[in-house]
């Protein structure tokens, strides 16, 4: 059967309803198994020794005393994890991050690991490992790192993307540029031009479950890994490559995941756990502490962004220019590039230019965080648009509607848009009661827009029909937000059976074909596409079996409402056969009935959102409280509206935390000062109002049900929406996120001076 994935506009019975999620009961009763819940016979406890220095050469590591300690079964350094992928820089960077070689590059960089019979012994062993460092000058600030005399992290780092190629090394690893038109011409046409620098501090995804895994390496060269991850197939590939294993000899089983948001798309400790297990010949459990998660997993970038926007008196934006410097940690990534691509994506601009610089700093390796890099760029752009709207005396929503991208607009990152939802989200915001609600004393309102690409990728799904007619759906994308419920609804919809008759599971790497990880808002988008086609394949078989049972030609059988129905004058009086009745006769009609599909789920529709935020600022203390918040976003089609709303609310909550409180604070010594939830404060329920949501459904023409990804866009507008609200409440433009109480107080005081 062909993979026809075009939108058909069909009506739905199951899709769009709100049943309970199949994993809910286990999660609220503690039965669900997360990464740290796996126990194997003879299992050892592993701990990692981490650098206390931001930047240093490793002169020597003496593990002899630790190895002699009773109960220690393996001690590991980079010598046990040699580079097996000569010439692959990306894999080498991953390996170097998992276990430092010649240099440590940030506070928390791993230098050695032990596996022992218990945690007490492992801790004692870590203390016996002697590492001799030669401390080097360090740099943690993104603006300091680009200065000519900044300490160099990598003496071989020559900036890519610059012509002619620079002769001197620097901390700027890469330059990228996007845009069209001529910004200088555009600025000359403007009546007002505003230029500002904005800064955002580094934040962590803040997932509640720390990284955890259990590795069991067999002397026969095969291994198993149980791990909390957003992509068990990707983890399998990377771990196998780093350890020099055949990919098929490593079985990775994903556990439930206690949050990831991009942070669990990369391997951190898993190759170390496997190498320890290989060396000790015992299963090894490795669980990061919260402090380790902060110091040595992957937060998002800290940024410094220069923005210049020109506008006419009637509200037409004539040009937009952005220079974006994003911290990458010690290894180059795509982070400033993503900021440069998304910065002006909401708008239809004739003249636009964005330039991104990937900057190396002595901080942990930057990792994806929900619509990676877009929130910071949106903060800068949306803040200046608000200022310009005030300057020309125009309503901020009206200005955005006037300049919003639409079908046929050339996006700021290049291509022309198809059907998109930025205009409808703005119009919905304009009509929303929140927009006209009265504000109290010291309160301010802000709004902002956001964009994310969304994508699909490699996907494989198996649908098996049991002898009683119930259905098992095995998918290979990790369920991070209710996908098993959504995919069960999809299977039920296609087959015409009830949601309760479908059991969706996430299969391990041996039970279903390769799947890309759950990122880019692709989980439900891509696995639903594969599920629809798998179900249609199963229906073809069901029709054949019904034809066999009836002894009629298969072209006289149709599938409707969960039943095979015979058609035509000759057969129309046959009673319909239910899926269960056909399944019961499967042994006599050809054996097990299943549907399968593998595809590349390309064609994900881009996504837009508009957020409205009210805050109250205490002008004496600078403390800010969000008093009302509304998210309006296009979902294409909300398969399970409750979990779509959950994604909207979750993204907004994370963005509010980022906007007001969260930041990595480094001391002059380059050490992280706040690696714990007491000093790095994420929002809790009492910090937030009920976040109101409005789902718009503008179908994605490239998905059979019109589905778009919904997981990431909701974190893009909050930094700007909160900043615009705080700026309006405080009467001073806020340009540095987080807008913590001391920063707000300082801004108010400075404005009064």
């Amino acid at each position: 059967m062909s993979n026809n994935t075009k939108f058909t506009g069909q009506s739905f019975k199951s899709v769009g309803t709100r049943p309970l999620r199949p994993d809910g009961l286990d999660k609220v009763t503690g039965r669900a198994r997360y990464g740290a819940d796996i126990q194997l016979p003879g299992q050892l406890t592993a701990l990692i020794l981490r650098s206390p220095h931001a930047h240093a050469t490793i002169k020597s590591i003496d593990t002899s005393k630790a190895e002699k300690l009773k109960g220690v079964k393996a001690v590991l350094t980079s010598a046990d994890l040699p580079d097996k992928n000569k010439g692959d820089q990306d894999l080498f960077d991953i390996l170097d991050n998992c276990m430092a070689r010649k240099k440590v590059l940030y506070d928390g960089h791993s230098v050695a690991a032990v596996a022992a019979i218990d945690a007490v012994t492992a801790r004692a062993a870590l203390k016996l490992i002697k590492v001799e460092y030669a401390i080097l000058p360090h740099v943690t600030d993104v603006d300091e790192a680009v200065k000519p005399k900044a300490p160099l992290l990598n003496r071989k780092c020559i900036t890519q993307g610059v012509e002619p190629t620079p002769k001197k090394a620097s901390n700027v690893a890469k330059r990228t540029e996007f845009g069209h038109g001529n910004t200088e011409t555009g600025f000359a046409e403007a009546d007002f031009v505003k230029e500002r620098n904005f800064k955002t501090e580094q934040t962590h995804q803040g997932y509640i479950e720390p990284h955890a895994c259990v590795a069991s390496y067999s002397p026969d060269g095969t291994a198993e890994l149980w791990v909390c991850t957003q992509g068990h197939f990707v983890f399998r590939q990377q771990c196998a490559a780093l350890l020099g294993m055949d990919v098929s000899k490593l079985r990775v089983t994903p556990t439930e995941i206690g949050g990831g948001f991009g942070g669990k798309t990369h391997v951190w400790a898993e190759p170390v756990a496997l190498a320890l297990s290989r060396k000790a010949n015992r299963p090894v459990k490795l669980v990061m502490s919260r402090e380790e998660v902060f110091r040595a997993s992957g937060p998002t970038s800290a940024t410094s962004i220069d923005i210049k926007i020109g506008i006419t008196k009637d509200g037409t934006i004539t040009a937009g220019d952005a220079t974006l410097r994003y911290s990458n940690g010690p290894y180059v990534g795509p982070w400033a590039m993503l900021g440069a691509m998304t910065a002006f994506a909401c708008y239809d601009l004739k003249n636009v230019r964005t330039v991104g610089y990937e900057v190396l700093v002595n901080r942990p390796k930057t990792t994806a965080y929900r619509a990676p890099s877009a929130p910071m760029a949106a903060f800068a752009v949306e803040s200046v648009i608000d200022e310009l709207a005030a300057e020309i005396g125009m309503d901020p929503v009206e200005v955005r509607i006037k300049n919003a991208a639409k079908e046929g607009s050339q996006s700021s990152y290049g291509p022309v848009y198809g059907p998109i939802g930025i205009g409808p989200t703005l119009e919905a915001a304009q009509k929303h009661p929140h927009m006209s609600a009265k504000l109290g004393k010291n309160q301010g309102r802000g709004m902002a827009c956001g964009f994310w690409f969304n994508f699909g990728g490699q996907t494989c799904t198996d649908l098996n029909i049991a002898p009683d007619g119930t259905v098992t759906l095995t998918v290979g994308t990790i369920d991070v937000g209710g996908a098993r419920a959504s995919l069960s609804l999809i299977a039920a919809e296609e087959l015409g059976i009830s949601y309760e008759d479908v059991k969706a599971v996430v299969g391990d790497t041996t039970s279903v074909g390769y799947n890309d990880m759950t990122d880019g808002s692709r989980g439900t988008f891509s696995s639903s596409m594969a599920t629809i086609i798998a179900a249609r394949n199963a229906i073809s078989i069901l029709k054949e079996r019904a034809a066999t049972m009836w002894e009629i030609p298969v072209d006289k059988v149709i599938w409707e409402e969960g039943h095979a129905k015979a058609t035509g004058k000759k057969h129309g009086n046959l009673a319909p056969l239910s899926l269960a009745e056909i399944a019961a006769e499967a042994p006599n009609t050809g054996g097990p009935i299943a549907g399968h599909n593998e595809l590349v789920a390309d064609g994900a529709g881009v996504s837009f959102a508009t957020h409205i935020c009210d805050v109250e600022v205490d002008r004496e203390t600078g403390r800010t409280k969000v008093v009302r918040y509304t998210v309006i976003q296009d979902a294409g089609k909300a398969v399970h509206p409750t979990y779509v709303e959950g994604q909207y609310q979750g993204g907004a909550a994370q963005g509010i935390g980022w906007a007001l409180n969260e930041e990595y604070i480094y001391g002059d010594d380059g050490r992280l000062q706040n690696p714990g939830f007491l000093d790095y404060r994420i929002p809790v329920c009492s910090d937030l109002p009920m976040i109101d949501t409005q789902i718009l459904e503008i179908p994605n023409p490239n998905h059979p049900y019109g589905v778009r990804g919904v997981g990431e866009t909701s974190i893009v507008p909050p930094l700007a929406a909160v900043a615009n609200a705080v700026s309006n409440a405080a009467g001073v433009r806020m340009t540095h996120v987080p807008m913590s109480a001391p920063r707000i107080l300082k801004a108010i005081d400075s404005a009064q001076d």
Partner: protein
Amino acid sequence: MAEIKVWGGLRPAIGGAATLDIEASTIRELLRKLEEQYPDTAPFIEAGIAVSIDGVIYRDSWGQKLPSSAEIYLLPRIEGG
């Protein structure tokens, strides 16, 4: 054949031009000819190039047809969270 536009980061590898003139009917053919005609694009292709066809971004589908009237835009292959 439709005009093929490229993002700023790829332009140095094709001599600074913003557009390309390559006759290709599929993404696979386009990328193969791109590397043949502009060897400096090899590291970009290795790192991943996505192809936008009339605004729909294809990251992996080599077999995707390139309609003659379509807008074709080459972009870096992106990742998400």
